Every structure is written in C-alpha cells, then in structure tokens.
C-alpha cells in the first residue's frame, strides 16, 4: 500500500508541479486548492504527508495545521509547510504549531522529494 500525500496550495501551477513530483516518487496524491478543501480531505482520511502552503486566502496554512493537530487522527500526519515569505518568526510559528518541516519557495524539487521520503522512512 503506497503512502498518501495531500498537496494544498492556491496556486494551480504549484499544485500541478507538486502533484507530478509526488506521483513520480511513487506516492498516492490528493490535491486541495484552499484550507476548507484541505480540511475536508483530511476529515475523509488523514494523509501520511501534508504539503501545505502558508499564504492562502480565507484560511491560511497555520490554521489548517493547527486544526489538523487538534484532531487525534491527524497527529501521525507529517506536515511540510511551504512559504514564499521566509522569515524566521514565521518558521518558528509553523514549527510551534506542529509542522515537521518548513520549506521556502522556490524550493529544489529534488531536495523536497528526498525530504518527504526521508520523513516517511523515519516515522
């Protein structure tokens, strides 16, 4: 049974590239275009890895992460935050909310894939 990845971003092109990368890496991929969709997908079945954009309209990535961690079923999910504003204060906030990694855009695709793989092997 393959590991499942949920990609959440409001930029369609970024979603497309992440979807492609994760599929090529052999994961099962689901996508969400905003915070609401993401929470709905998580509620259906929590993924193994959540690739989560921080800056989204309405509900941002921090909130999604917080709600995910509040749900006991979501504790096992690995969360990788993606952000285009690489400030230290934000990184700390993300990690404090329970994110496992914090990646600044634009990212290296190889590193990202390697990181996700490593994360899944650890836990």
């Amino acid at each position, binding site marked *: 049974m393959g590991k499942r990845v949920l990609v959440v971003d409001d930029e369609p092109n970024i979603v497309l590239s992440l979807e492609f990368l994760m599929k090529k890496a052999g994961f099962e991929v689901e996508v969400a275009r905003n915070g609401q969709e993401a929470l709905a997908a998580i509620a259906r079945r929590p993924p193994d890895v959540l690739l989560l954009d921080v800056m989204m309209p309405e509900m941002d990535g921090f909130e999604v992460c917080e709600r995910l961690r509040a749900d006991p079923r979501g504790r096992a999910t690995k969360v990788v935050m993606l952000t*285009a504003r690489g400030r230290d204060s934000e990184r700390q906030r993300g990690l404090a909310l329970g994110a496992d990694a914090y990646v600044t855009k634009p990212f290296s*695709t190889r590193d990202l894939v390697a990181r996700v793989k490593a994360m899944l092997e650890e836990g």
Partner: protein
Amino acid sequence: MIGALIALLLSLLYLGLLFGIANYGDRMAARGATLIGSPLVYTLSLAVYCSAWTFFGSVGLAAEAGVAFLPIYLGPTVIAVLFPLLHGKILAIAKAYGITSIADFIASRYGKSSLLGGLVTLVAVLGTIPYISLQLKAVANSLDVLFAASLAQRTDGPIPEPALLVTLVLAAFSILFGTRHIDATEHHEGMVLAIAFESLVKLAAFIAVGLFVTYGMFEGFGDIFGRLAAAGRDGLLTMSATGLSYIDWMTYTLLAALAFLALPRQFQVAVIENVDKDHLRTATWMFPLYLLVINIFVLPVAMAGAVLGRGGDTLMLDLPLAAGSQIFALVAYIGGLSAATAMVIVATIAISTMISNDLVMPALLRVERLRLGQRHDLSGLVLAIRRASIFLQLLAGYAFFRLVAERIELVSIGLISFAAIAQLAPLILLGLFWRQASLAGALLGLIAGFLVWFYTLIVPALVFAGWLEPAILEEGLFGLALLRPEALFGLEGLTPVTHAVLWSLGANTLLMVVGSLATRPSDLGRLQAILFVDVEQRQSSTRLWRGETRVAALQDLLVRFLGRERAVRVFAREALRRGQSLRAGDRADAELVQLAERQLARAIGATSARLMVASIVRGEVIGPDALLEILDETSQAIEYSQKLEQKSHELENLTAELRRANERLRQLDQLKDDFIATVSHELRTPLTSIRSFSEILLDHPDLPGEQRRQFVEIIARESQRLTRLIDDVLDLSKIESGRMEWEVADHDLRRIIEEAVSASEGLMRENGIQVSVKFGVARALVRCDGDRITQVMLNLLSNAAKFVPARAGRIHVELRGLGNEFLVRVEDNGPGVPPPLREAIFEKFRQIGGSIRDKPHGTGLGLAICREIVQHFDGRIWCEEAKLGGAAICFTLPVREARLRAAE
C-alpha cells in the same frame, strides 16, 4: 483743572475696563458662546497693526516730511488685497497641522526643524523688542507731556520714572491676559475681543482729536491749507518734501508689506486667532478701509502743527494743550495708550508662545538629565516659561528704550523692527509656493539676512546712542571703506533703512534660492514641502498605521501637557464622534495617534509634539508616501546614531540615547521589511513554478511530448507574470516617489479607447469575449500622457476579461461627457465586486478571488497603478455595479480646458 495724576488714574481705569472685556469674552467662550464670530471683530483685531507708532509717529513724521508716512500703510493694503490667496493658504495649513506661531509655521514647513524654529524665534524676539520699546517710549513721552502741562498749573511732583511704571503695569497686564491656559491654538477669545475694542478706541480718539484740531482750532481743511500756503510751507505736500527717493519709497512700501505678513502679532491675530476662514473675505476690504480712515486726519493735524511751528512725536497732545483743551489731550493720550497696549499684549503673547514652544521646550525635552519626558504634569512648566518670557520681553524693551531708543525717533525704531521681521518673509512666501525651498536654503537666507540687518541698522544705532565709536561708520569695519555699515560695498545715496533692507533682503533671498537649489532637501523636508504647497489637495489624504501604542499611553501623554480635564474631554469628544468608547487597553489607531499629536502640537508646537509622540509610539504613522517616509526616518535615525557614536566617549549618558536611536532604527527596519516581504512573496510564487517545472523537465527527459509542451507553456506564462510584476512594481514606485516622467500632451480619449480595444482584440477573441464600445461624444480632448492612459485602459480591459464567464463573456466600454470631465466606464458581466470591497480593490496587492473564483493571475498592482495614473491627471477612479450584472470600473479625466485653467 485735570491734573496729570488723573491721567494715571484714567490709564488704570482704562486697563481695568480692558481686562473686564477680556474676562467677559473668555467667560462667554467657556460657556460656548463666542463673541468674536463676526468678521468685524476679526478685522478690528487685525488693526493691532496700528500701534503707538501710527498714533504718534505718523503725525510727527508728516509734520516734517508730508506723505512720507504713507508707504507703511500702502504696503499692508496691497497685502490685504491678496488675503484670499496668501492668508487663505496659510490659514488652511495652520488649521490642518495645528500651527501655534509663525516660528512653528516656518519650522514645520522646512521639515519640523527645531534649529530653524529657534532661529526664527530669535529673529522675532530681536525684531520685536525695539518695537516694544517704541510703545514704552510713546506712552512715557505722552505722560511726560501731560506732567509738564500740569506742572505749569499745579505743584504735584512728577512720578520719577513713568517708563518703568508703564513697563511693569503692561507686563502684569499681558501676563494676566495671555497665559491663563496653555493651548496656543485654542483661541484667546477674550484677548481678541479686547484688542478689537482697543482698535475702536484708538480710531475714535484719533478722529476726535483730528476733528478738534481741524474744526475746533481751525476752520476746516481749507483753512489749514490756506494758512500753510500763506506761511510758505505748502511744499510740505509734494514728493520732494518726503526726502524719499524712488527706491526709498518703493522699498518702504515693500518693507511694510513683508513685515505685515511676518510680524508675530499679525500672524497671531490673522491666523492663530482666526475662528472662521470666511472672515478673510470681509477683512480684504475692511482692513485697508480702517487704515485709510485712521490716516485721514494725519495730514491735517501735521499741517496744523507746521502752521503753528510745532512738530515731533507728541504733536497729538501738544496741539490740544496749546489750545487749552486738557480733555482732548487726555483723549489723545488714551488713544495712544490703547494703541500701545494692544501691540504689547498681542506681541508678547505671540512671542512667549514661540519662546516656550520653539526655543525652550525642545531644548529642555532633549536634555536627558531633566527627564521631562517622564514628568507628570508639564502644563505648569509651560505656563511659567511663557509668563517669564513676557516679563523678560518687556524688561528688555525697557532696557532698549533706556540705552538706545531715547535718542532715536519713533519712526526709525519702527522701521528697524520691520526690517528684522521682514527677514522671515522670504521663508514664508517661497515656502508657500515653491516646493524646492529647503531647510538649508532657509537657514542660509535667514542667517545672512539677519546678520546684514544687524550690521547695517543696529550697529549705526549703537553708534548714535553713543555705545560704539563713530569711526566704524566713517571708515568701515577694520578700516575697510567697502564695509561701512551705512554704505555697504559703496552703495550710497539711500536712506539707512532702504540701504539695509535692500542688502539684507537681497542677501536673504539670494542665499535662500541658491541654498535650496544646491542642496537636496531631506525626505521629511520634501514631504512637508508637499503638504504645505499642495495643502488644498492634501487635506483628505488617508493614512495607514503600523505603529503600536495603547489608548491609555496617549491619554497619559495628553494629561501631562494639557491637564487631566482637557485630556479627558478630548478623548470623550472623540469617542462621541466615533459612537463607541475608547477603552484604555485598546490599541490606538492611526487617527487617534494623529489626533493626540495635533492636540499636543497646539500646546507645545509641532516639533516637540512629534518628539513626544514618537517617544511612546513604537512604529510610525505611514502616509501616502509610505515608503518615502519610512526610508527618510531610517536615514534620519542612522544619521542621528552616527552623530551620537562620535560623542559617546564624552558622556556616558549619551550611550542610553544611542541605544534608543538604534532601537528605533530596528523598528523602522521592520516596517521596511514588511513591504519587502510582500513584494518578495509575489516574486517567489511565479519563481517557484518556473523552478519546479524547469527541474522536472531536466530530471525527466523521457516525458511525453504533450506533457512537456504543457510544462514549458507554464514556464513561459509564469515568466511573463514575473516580468509584469517587476514592471508594475517599478511603475508604481516611480509614480509614488514622483520620479515618473510624464509626457503630457493633448489626446483624444476616443482614440485612446479605440487603440486599447483593438490592441486587446486577440485576447478577447481567444477567450470568446464579446466587446462593445459606445461613444457619447464626438471628440474628447484631454491633457494627459497618452501611453499611460492607454495602459489604464488595457489594464481595465484585461482585468474585466479575467472575471467574465468562460465563452459567454461580455465587456462594454462607454465614453461620455460629465460636466467638466469625461467619464469612461468599463463594464463586464462577471461576478461583480461586493460593495464593501469596492474601495479595497484599488489597494496594492489586494486581489479578490478565493471563494468567488480561483485566484486571478494578475499582479495585484494593476488597479493601484490605474488609480495613481488617473489621479495624477486630476481624475477619479471607482468601482460600481454594472448594468451587465458584473463590475463597472469608471474613471474620469478633466476636459482639457478645465485642466489648463486649474493649472494656472
């Protein structure tokens, strides 16, 4: 018979009455019933211009030199005609920015410089003290005359030192009058009322004495003139009698005009005490009318004196006494007294505000050891400074009188004062109308003008008074003939005053212009210049707020300077206005911080208020020129901390200050970061797609052709988006910083619209959008930059195209006339913009999307740029509901003729 002591008694009674009037005015004002709401009172208060110099000096001069006294009144007449232009603008500025005095006005204009504020105060003080001494001299002289007259009849001993007595009484009186409360822009209603009353008294007294002399002692104008001719003195009424050359006459007129503009007491009554801008309109004709009326009897009285072989500054008293009428002598005395007291009261109050707000307080606030910033109640201190300064001014006036002025005529002292005060005029006039006028220029001009004034007028006066060796007048400084104070660089044949005015004002203006052109003003200076010069357009500019402070902190600050009662009242009124209470723990918004700064500025001046508010607010108020101001503050803070570093080894307490400056620097840096972070987010997003897909293509050479093509297309599209974004950011920053080069010409809006529509035809066809255009006018000539307006049109069209439903999109463009403007509407049948967001879509990086639709692929700057461009050409832009059901973005541009008119 009426003795001299009765004159003294009468003086005290008169002053008592005056005080009663002022008290009544203040009490009524406290109850909310203003007594100075009439343009008549405003005009009469302006007549504080007519001091004892007018009352006694004019007649004395006219008896010797005919109409030579007139330029002093013709100058202000010309200025009065310009009231709606000059004072209209000054008033708008003063009211918008809480100006408290002329020094505050000038300092604020040139970047809230406390150095300049202090210098202006200094010039004003030095220019006013001779003037005060002139009033003392006039009152003392007239008392002397009355004593002499009464001595002939009675044996009462004269009071040994009338001038000192007059000084002390006036000092006490001014202090009582002017320093009851501390807020300098809250009107001294009582004082204004009393001054208006004094203007009536002196006018009535002058006319009464004039009538008595003309019709009581003589048989009318004809009789006086006939006897003057019979005595062979009718040459008195020709230009040659004035002893003034062409240049002298013009210079005196100019001097009086400029002094009238810049005199602290005139600024006080005309600007600070003004309660209604509309009063200016009445004053435009009524004030020169007052000047005309008060001058009507100057010549008859002077000619009567000439017929009787008398002259001098006390002619107004001498003539009635010679005719045996002590009553009219007393009337003249009271008229002169009222003219003198009015001048002294207003001048000392105005100057005391300047001394406390622009000289002493900024200095005290900067002295770390006093810890004034932390003291609980400073209003007492401010009042004490003002009272002391009033007292010292009068004392200095008395000293000048004793040491110098006793030996010089009234008119000469008045002109010396005028020449000093006129040095401020270039700073005001250039500052009002010339954006480039800078602090460096202002400092250079003022210092140069003042030094020349001192050298060419005060040095000779000191020589005449016997305090300096006459050698300097004859041989010049260091024995250099070119440096003779009264014939600088060989300029001879003018009266000393003309000579001094030409050199000092010339040097002042020249250095000011050269200094301004040669230096780049600080960014704060530039901002203030814009705020002043374009005051009419800037009134409504909204401000953002990113600083942080609590309501309670602001209130504490106000309590310390205004007292608890007033501070609480200010906040209560604001809460009432907002319809919600201001809780102490709440974060204060921009509006509240500005309100507090304005209130504070009214009490202690703009410069000090800024220092105080900055001390409790973390962060800074950000205006429309947001970045400019932040950058400016940063560079100021950097400069400041560098200076401190140089000195830090000298004093250990300076290190604390250094820490604070650095702290502030850090906070400002943070603000700059916020803006840069937003831009960086917008840049990184397309970059992410570009990098991801490039790497995908690199790592997967075996992708099917179709997918390859799709990814390359995305890379191309995102690259375009990145280019657009960079273009937009550059455009916007150029426009906002005023560095955009506009190519303005006449354009037909119709052509522009047609071109834009045809240029976007491809995009529309591709997306199956139907575009219709309707022109309501045959030709729409506007003055603008055609390329930029085309850019606006293209932006609006592509914006609309983004929102219309796929394959069923409709866009309608309409152009029609609307009064003095042309209106362009771009409508679509998309989802529309909900009313609460209609303003917000024109802000930077505010895209709507999300729940309505997928995030649109604009830069988030398009509409912001459109707004900047349209507003640059005096147009408006807004969003409303479209008849097609979606959004309608409308903008207007003024008709060419209307814009040309406005430009002039």
